């Protein structure tokens, strides 16, 4: 079961989608409504997910050796990297693009293994400025936060 948690999650998604689709009007075969296609998709997803689970379980029983089929979870670095991006997302509206980007870059560069403080801060500052100027030149609106 543990090896199939992704497949089971997709099955759960299919079941949830199918359930939510029942709240939409399916219409008739001569005049399909907004719920018509989603119901077909829901059934298709559930069947496909069950087939994937079944075939994978069947092959796991019959296979001799080979890969365990276990899904590798994100490693510590990837999780910390993602945490940094989530922090960036939260800080963006308040701190504004330049400051949030500077802080996020400094954190991520440090996380990826750079140890020289001057390089971390210098690179973060330079890239934040370059990105900001690039988006400003292309007239792409970005949140300015405390600088707004």
């Amino acid at each position, binding site marked *: 079961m543990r090896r199939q948690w992704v497949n089971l999650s997709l099955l759960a998604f299919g079941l949830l989608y199918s359930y939510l689709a029942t709240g939409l009007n399916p219409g*008739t*075969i001569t005049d399909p409504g907004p719920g018509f296609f989603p119901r077909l998709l829901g059934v298709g997803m559930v069947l496909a997910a069950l087939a994937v689970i079944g*075939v994978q379980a069947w092959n796991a029983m019959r*296979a001799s050796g080979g890969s365990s089929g276990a899904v590798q979870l994100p490693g510590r670095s*990837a999780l910390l990297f993602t945490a940094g991006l989530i922090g960036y997302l939260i800080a963006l509206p308040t701190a504004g693009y330049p400051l949030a980007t500077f802080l996020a870059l400094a954190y991520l560069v440090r996380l990826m293994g750079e140890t020289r403080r001057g390089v971390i801060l210098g690179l973060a500052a330079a890239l934040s400025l370059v990105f900001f100027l690039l*988006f400003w030149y292309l007239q792409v609106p970005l949140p300015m936060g405390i600088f707004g």
Partner: protein
Amino acid sequence: MDPLHALVQGFHAALSPFNLLACFGGVLAGTIAGVLPGIGPVGTMALLLPLSFGLPTDSAIIMLAGVYYGAMYGGSTTAILINIPGETPSIVTTFDGYQMTRKGRAGAALAIAALGSFVAGTLGVVGLMLMAPVLARAALRFGPPEFFAVGVFGIILLSNLTSAPFLKSILMSLVGMALGTVGSDLITGRDRFTFGSPELRSGIDFAILTMGMYGLDEVLSVADEPYAVPSLFKVKLRDLYPNREELRRSAAPMLRGGVLGFLVGLIPGPSAFLASLFSYSLEKQLSSHPEEFGKGAVEGVAGPESANNAASAGAMVPLFALGLAFAPPVAVLLSGFMIHGIQPGPLFISQHPALFWSAIASMYIGNAMLLVLNLPLVGLFASLVRTPARFLMPAVALLTMAGAFSLNNSQFDLRILLGATLAGYVLRRAQFEPTPLIIGMVLGPVMERGLRQGLIVTRGDLASFVSRPITATLLAAAMGIVVYRCLRLVWRRPAAQSPA
């Protein structure tokens, strides 16, 4: 307007200073994306999408298209010099390209790859220029059932051709189609799966999902397993000349690769990779020295590199003629059109001839630019791969997030982006490919509209729905693929890896 006259007008527009700059920016970004590991053409195109807002429509399309075919050039550089393919289609180039480097013929390999890419890329554009209007005129006779059938066939064929197991690709396609139903219903305008959220009312932007599953997902992978900075084989400018024998042996493979690549590019899926693989097999079959393949045969570089470039042009035919995207880079290009209020499809060429022909003309120009860029600057591009991951990945990640935010000025999109990133990360490791999901999101609305309108038109008569020749042919072909895969599943011996 006759095609030649239209093409001349197209060149006139494409040669404007601004469009030349957009073309140069696109091919340069594409080449860099092709060279650098962890960054692909799809992520780069999605990243440049918000930056294209401020550009005129033709400049935006020229730039985005330039990234796509530019990346095909860039991927060969590292494949030849350090045996690391910059992009998936360049995997095949490593078979003989790197062997040529080991024999001291790196410069010749790079030159052949660039020349082949130019020749075949140009051939591909000729094919696009000739075929797209013809297919568009034929597609004017397509009704809703035909579009539904094209979508079904495209999804099934794509699922058959991806590297992931067939059933898993089908499941991903269905998930993508389901995500495509979020928002307002196309026919009644009724909200579906929005949970009262105003952001979800306009649907989930597949460009955001693309950025997450192709851009940030790669960044996370590198964060987990940073690549080692490779040592590079140095190539001097004066070494960039193939000898007469190499040129003679490359000519026919380049032309064959161009034709084959263009035709393969028309089909859904990883067409550039498939084109390079088919071309390699073909050249090995036709060669009078097949034993040289895998040991530095110049045909093994010329053919595949030509094919993958021509495939990128072929992949654009369904986009311009039918308004359908069968590959993620083309889906991003479709998004670029829609952002500027243009809907590609059967009427696109007749309603926007200036845009179509300036895009075509710019591809000729872009291929010439790439030939000029890639040869003298090959050392510079190759040295980019030495950029440490600890500098490159954070920059790419934050640029991607800023780009995603600016698409719709929405924090909500950033949440979708991060969710898609984590989902893509986990799904890839569970042998699910994101490509069918993205294409499902793009084709789902087309299929739904085709099915519902088709049923309305035929008054629910499924027999007359499927009796139309094109519909019947496409649905039968799709069914044939499904039956074939099911039979393979039943007769297959137990294997270490799941075939599901």
